[in-house]
């Protein structure tokens, strides 16, 4: 799961036209809302011709919106994985992941001022990727847990597949709905991770 260097850089590599188009689409959404996204507007923003846009997204606006949304979701998680990669323990990674993830969500302007119908369009576009997001995070966590298990840092008898699924659900639930927890606060987040996330998983070594 080594992070792709391009995710850490703020700019999309010049060479990748497809990503240049999707970045332009995101800027359009941030500035004018989802409804204002059109092939013309995105072409102008990207400094490319409409013909070039249609070559990469033959399905037109619908395909562009849907693929851009999915791409942006993937980028969010890759950035997060990269940000926590070098931390020593599961606890540290989870704490940092929640804090950084929450801050990234707050900083993003995509959701600002979205009208309900626009929200629905985005949600529909993302619906198919939700299951994939869940699976990818679960598999990523499972790999981490398997390493922890091999080093004797998990409670004896821990089912790493099930534990990874549990952690995935907690992460998604808390990033979506903190319900009163301030997840930008590291100490509060650490308390949460210790009590509700890993207490039954990471434990006295066998």
């Amino acid at each position, binding site marked *: 799961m080594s992070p792709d260097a391009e995710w850490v850089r703020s700019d999309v590599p010049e060479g990748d036209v497809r990503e240049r188009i999707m970045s332009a689409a995101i800027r359009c959404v941030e500035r004018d809302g989802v409804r204002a996204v059109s092939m013309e507007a995105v072409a102008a923003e990207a400094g490319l011709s409409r013909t070039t846009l249609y070559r990469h997204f033959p399905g037109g606006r619908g395909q562009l919106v849907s693929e851009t949304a999915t791409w942006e979701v993937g980028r969010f998680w890759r950035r997060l994985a990269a940000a926590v990669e070098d931390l020593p323990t599961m606890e540290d990674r989870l704490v940092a992941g929640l804090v950084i993830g929450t801050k990234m969500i707050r900083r*993003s302007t995509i959701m600002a001022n979205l009208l309900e119908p626009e929200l629905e369009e985005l949600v529909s576009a993302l619906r198919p990727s939700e299951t994939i997001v869940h699976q990818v995070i679960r598999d990523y966590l499972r790999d981490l847990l398997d390493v922890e298990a091999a080093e004797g840092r998990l409670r004896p008898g821990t089912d790493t597949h099930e534990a990874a699924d549990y952690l995935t659900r907690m992460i998604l639930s808390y990033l979506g709905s903190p*319900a009163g927890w301030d997840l930008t606060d590291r100490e509060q987040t650490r308390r949460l991770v210790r009590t509700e996330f890993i207490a039954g998983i990471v434990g006295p070594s066998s």
Partner: protein
Amino acid sequence: MTSGAGGHIIGTGGTRTALGPSSSASDPADARSTTTQLASTVAPGSTEERVVDAMFACIARWGLAKTTVEDVARTAGISRATVYRLFPGGKSSILEAGLATEITRLVAALSEQLEEMDDLESCLGRAIGVATVFLRDHEALAYVREHEWSAVESFLAHDRLDALFLLAGTTLGPSLLRFLPPEQAGRVAVWAARMVVSYLLSPSEEMDLGDEATARRVVATYLLPGLGAAA
């Protein structure tokens, strides 16, 4: 959801707008002011209750998008003007009151059962099992889950899911006071609600929380070990 992206953007299912810190309370269980975002529940036997129940009946039949205030009024046997007098916000405020009412009804039915149980694990297992089955079998919810998914998610946007979780905490929490101090009871109740919603929105092929024994095992494996550490 916020000037930040919500859960939609990260693929979490439930969304929220980032309206800045959702609560400055350091103790999550005290963050109850958020629940005021949700309409209050309707009184049993009231006209409001008829409206709310009529709304669910309509959604179960025609779906959320096609249901109009007119349909709701007709089904409830009252005038459209009366519906708007009771719910000036129309459809979405009826729906908010309806959700809050259903949760309150569910918890009330549960609380009675929980009184007879002797330990936290059994209580939570029962609560999660019963809530899972109730929500899974809820006809209106089943319709929108099946056919109008994006409507569910955009409804849950704008911190409504947070409000629902906190409502679950304040209503179910008191049933756990025999086993836990108040702050922990509220937090554990919210945890149970999170589990139910997570498995409802992203069902697992391996785990059925509608099965009480399975729910108890999840409680025992992942929640109980952390309660000691917090105390």
